């Protein structure tokens, strides 16, 4: 459920209505960014967010993504890596 697509924020369109333009593989759409709106809207530029039904519902963390990928690459008998990742104390 809940088709959520990673898209990159390209421009801030309307600070009052909190809308931004995002792009997925070159396809653009204006979305509502209220759920991720920071004090300084410019901070959003270049960031990636999960888009669902015209709303940006959450930012994607590059650091977390890399950590997950690193854990994946490290698997193959290294059980402790998995355990590391699974601990309740995340960096999120």
């Amino acid at each position: 459920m809940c088709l959520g697509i990673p898209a990159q924020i390209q421009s801030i369109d309307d600070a009052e209505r909190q809308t931004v333009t995002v792009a997925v593989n070159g396809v653009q759409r204006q979305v509502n960014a209220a759920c991720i709106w920071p004090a300084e809207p410019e901070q959003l530029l270049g960031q990636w967010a999960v888009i669902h039904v015209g709303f940006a519902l959450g930012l994607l963390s590059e650091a977390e993504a890399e950590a997950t990928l690193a854990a994946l690459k490290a698997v193959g008998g290294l059980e402790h890596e998995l355990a590391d990742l699974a601990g309740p104390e995340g960096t999120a």
Partner: protein
Amino acid sequence: MLREEECITLAHGSGGQAMQQLIEQYFVAAFDNAELALMEDQAQLPLASLNGAGDRLSFATDSFVVDPLEFPGGDIGKLAVCGTVNDVAMAGAIPRYLSCSFIIEEGLPLATLERIVASMARTAREAGVQIVTGDTKVVHRGACDKLFINTSGIGVVPGDRQLGARHIQPEDRVIVSGTVGDHGAAILQARGELALSGELQSDCQPLNGLVEAMLAAGPVRALRDATRGGVAAVANEMASVAQVSIELEEAALPLHPEVRGVSEILGLDPLLMANEGKLIAVVPPQHCDAILAAMQAHPAGREAAVIGTVAAAPAGQVSVVGLFGGSRLLPMPVGEQLPRIC
């Protein structure tokens, strides 16, 4: 407030003076050939020249109802010429003559019609066909969506060409002539309802030149242009008619990045999206390389790729092998694809 731009009125479809002028000034002028200029209700075409080229006629028809009328990469006129030229060409035929019938909603700007007619004329020249007879109807506002065009086409099939889904054999290879879903995705963008924007162009183009290049390179079992219902519909029709199994490879499918973008955002499958200038060819395995090379050497087939293989069983079934080797069924599409949230 004065009279706005000139537009089509019911008078243009009434069989009288206004209609005659429309036909003469727009259609006869743009399509420019002797048969049409006679202004009879039908065209007369010498059988002698057809006899010289083959032993069968190929006869096809399609109506075009695309919205919007003009979109990146084409318009309804270009589409109408390509669509029928391609259906005729899929028989291995050399397309020769088209008819062209307009249903116009009153209020259509004449300038729009003029652009579309010019585009038809240009595309017909490119495809080497003549538009020899036509018809014009004008309907009340609200009785049609701006403009519909029907084209019907006649081509001649050389005697040694026997194409058709029924000739498909196990071990044959399935080739697609380029990226899939471009037209469907471009139209979704152009329609604007989903507020998507991008650079994507429809792939709308005549394929008869490509077909000639392919047939010169080797024998082909069957051809289909992958229009409505996309690759999924064509593969299923072929599997069903030939009673074979077709296995496609997901990773082999040429895909424009923006088509992937649109598909991801809306939850659509590019295998089900419409194309208007792409064909699916099934060829014997020993001729696959030569035909593929000929395709890639032709402007309309540069991104051609082998995307699948035919097997004997299970008869009538199409499957797709995924990235990790597992396979899923690709059934005949059900209804039009709708944007999904889940």
